């Protein structure tokens, strides 16, 4: 398969790019909800518009009312979310959440997917339990209790967790904390008893919750897939979140790059446009090169993942590590090349720098994924 968008994908990209430029812009979305102190960290009206465009259910099967698209298509949306810094539950809900629920029973999908697809509900994903991404270690426990389970433990960095209608939780139903087996995924309704949120605003104005589950009673219908056999499904959810955040990062990087090169073409010092200085030209050209390479790695990983290829896991980590490193370079160069105004809240470039940090951390940073590349390569 060639490494560029098919005609259908290119059409989707055109539509989404235009729509997001009109509706998802920094002033209308990110700054608007940030400045009002919104406790969701995103706007429900735009989420409803996503639903009207069919984006909310793009990864769901047609039988479930979705579009049965893949990660290449989801990545098109995420890239534009990234470029516009749009606060959106799309990644956690429509990419990771739907991937998780797709491994669940008819009843479970029937319970949650219609609301997601209609843009009425959102999902959160609770996997990590420490400040760094370590999904190999899961200590939160769900003990058998009657026909259901009793869930206890702590989950951290659950993006939009306090706003979610259901939280997808990875918990241990057997074995010890670092066992590969013994994991079960649950779809936990927000109103279940025993859930305490520590809802926090992050550097990029997103809201994330540290969640405490204290003997939360769950009926058996909350289980997604197999009891004790959830690791495989969890890995799918992780891969979706990793390649999704990588795609979004390339959007952030390109967005930062575009406003920076535009600035180089308008700002004058010493009687010249600063973009005439070779010192800046070479750095901008290097950054362009890195962004192109990161985007290539992302689309390759998306295609491999959609095709169910064996190499997908390796390329997903390559893509996330490369996108994280590159986007970080883009935002650092962006602020530096803007000079003093780059430090002000009035200019958008600093917002890109903040978003880069959050997204890089989400589902594993460049160090985590470079380590994974080494391990998957056999060293």
């Amino acid at each position, binding site marked *: 398969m060639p*490494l560029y968008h098919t005609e259908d994908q290119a059409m989707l990209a055109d539509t989404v790019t235009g729509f997001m430029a009109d509706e998802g812009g920094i002033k209308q979305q990110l700054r608007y909800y940030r400045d009002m102190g919104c406790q969701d960290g995103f706007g429900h009206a735009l989420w409803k518009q996503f639903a009207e465009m069919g984006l909310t259910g793009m990864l769901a099967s047609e039988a479930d009312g979705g579009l049965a698209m893949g990660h290449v298509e989801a990545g098109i949306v995420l890239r534009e979310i990234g470029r516009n810094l749009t606060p959106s539950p799309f990644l956690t809900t429509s990419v990771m959440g739907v991937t998780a629920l797709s491994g669940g029973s008819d009843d479970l999908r029937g319970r949650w997917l219609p609301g997601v697809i209609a843009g009425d509900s959102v999902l959160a994903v609770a996997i990590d339990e420490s400040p760094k991404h370590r999904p190999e270690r899961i200590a939160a426990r769900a003990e058998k209790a009657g026909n259901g389970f009793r869930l206890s433990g702590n989950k951290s960095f659950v993006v939009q967790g306090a706003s979610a209608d259901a939280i997808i939780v990875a918990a241990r139903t057997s074995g010890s904390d670092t066992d590969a087996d013994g994991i079960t995924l649950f779809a936990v309704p927000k109103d279940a008893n025993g859930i305490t949120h520590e809802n926090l605003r992050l550097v990029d104005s997103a809201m994330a919750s540290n969640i405490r589950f204290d003997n939360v009673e769950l009926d058996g219908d909350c289980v997604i897939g197999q009891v004790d056999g959830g690791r495989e499904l969890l890995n799918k959810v992780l891969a979706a979140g990793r390649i999704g955040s990588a795609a979004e990062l390339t959007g952030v990087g390109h967005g930062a790059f575009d406003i920076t090169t535009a600035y180089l*073409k308008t700002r004058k010092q010493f009687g010249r446009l600063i973009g005439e200085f*070779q010192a800046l030209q*070479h750095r901008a050209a290097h950054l362009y090169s890195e962004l192109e390479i990161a985007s*290539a*790695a992302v689309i390759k990983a998306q295609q491999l993942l959609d095709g169910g290829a064996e190499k997908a896991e390796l390329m997903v980590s*390559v893509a996330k*590590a490369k996108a994280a490193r590159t986007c970080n370079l883009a935002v650092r160069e962006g602020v530096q090349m803007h000079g003093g105004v780059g430090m002000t809240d009035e200019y958008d470039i600093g917002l890109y720098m903040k978003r880069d940090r959050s997204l890089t951390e989400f589902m594993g940073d460049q160090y985590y994924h470079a380590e994974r590349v*080494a391990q998957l390569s056999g060293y």
Partner: protein
Amino acid sequence: MSDLENFRQEIRSWLEANCPAEMRQPVTDEGDVCWGGRNFVFKNEAQKQWLERCVAKGYTVPDWPQAYGGAGMSPAQAKVWREECARIGARPPLSSFGIWMLGPALLKFGTEEQKVHYLGEIARGEIRWCQGYSEPGSGSDLVSLQTFGEDKGDHWVVNGQKIWTSYADKADWIFCLVRTDKANKYQGISFLLFDMTTPGVTTKPILLISGNSPFCETFFDDVKVPKHQIVGELNRGWDVAKYLLGHEREMISGAGGGDRLNAIGAVVARNGLEDPMLRAELAMFDVDALAYGCMGEKFLDEAKIGKAHPAQPNMMKYAGTELNKRRHELLMSAGGATALEWDSERTNGGSPARSWLRTKANSIEGGTSEVMLNVVAKRILDLPGA
């Protein structure tokens, strides 16, 4: 099964039956590369056989038209060919500046007669070409070149000197930039082809820091070049030169395949990898190398349908050569004192050190990294005054 899948099966079984086992081993030194040409000495029977079998099918230049010695493959088919060759580790049957550089320029600018004649020779590996571009005073500022061709009616008389002419001492013919109008800088250069055995042509190898001499100085002393041996129009050779440079940069970038796209951590680790800091650097390198491999694939896919930016080979050359230099720095560090050995048998005659030193030319030859960045800034980013 789709047509492309049928094609894949066809290629797979042809390769299985026709690619000799020796030709599926990695290339470890210069002698493993088949350059072709009048004076080429095959390293072994397998190398010769592999070339002959590919020539018969047009597989040395799979995407060139059949009329010019190719196999007439579509972009998608050529990609299948590359993938299937890579799958079994098949070596390229023929490596040549004719295939990588002159061929594409002839396909675009050559007359029908030139295409049939020269492309056929290239495809069959009969003529080995070298490139006469740089001069002692014209490196990055190539367009200032001084080698002059004086108009003598039905021929030119060429005088001057070229430098860094790769394998000029082994080449049969040269494609050469010659000034044919001293009054016009850009529109005063012509693109000429001539036989290296023409009287007045001499070459002198240059000893490099690697201890090898792949590059030469090439001198022209009253060299007669017939008028029909020009590609493109008189004084418009710069257009041909620039077009060819795009292909040269693409070639040097390594985008087309080969070890430049590979990760190295696992290979290094086979000999033990005890240093955690080195391991970390290797992991970061592998991320960059594997990502660059995707870029190479994407670039070729887009180039084949005219979707790549025309200046993109400059970006590829910059990224690919800087990556390759980093690769060899890491390989030297991983090899430790053994990698320092200059002529020992176990290092195959100092191969790690010599290869490492050779890579330093990657970001100089065919346009320096700094020139590549200039071109990207100007032509792709449209930065002011660039």
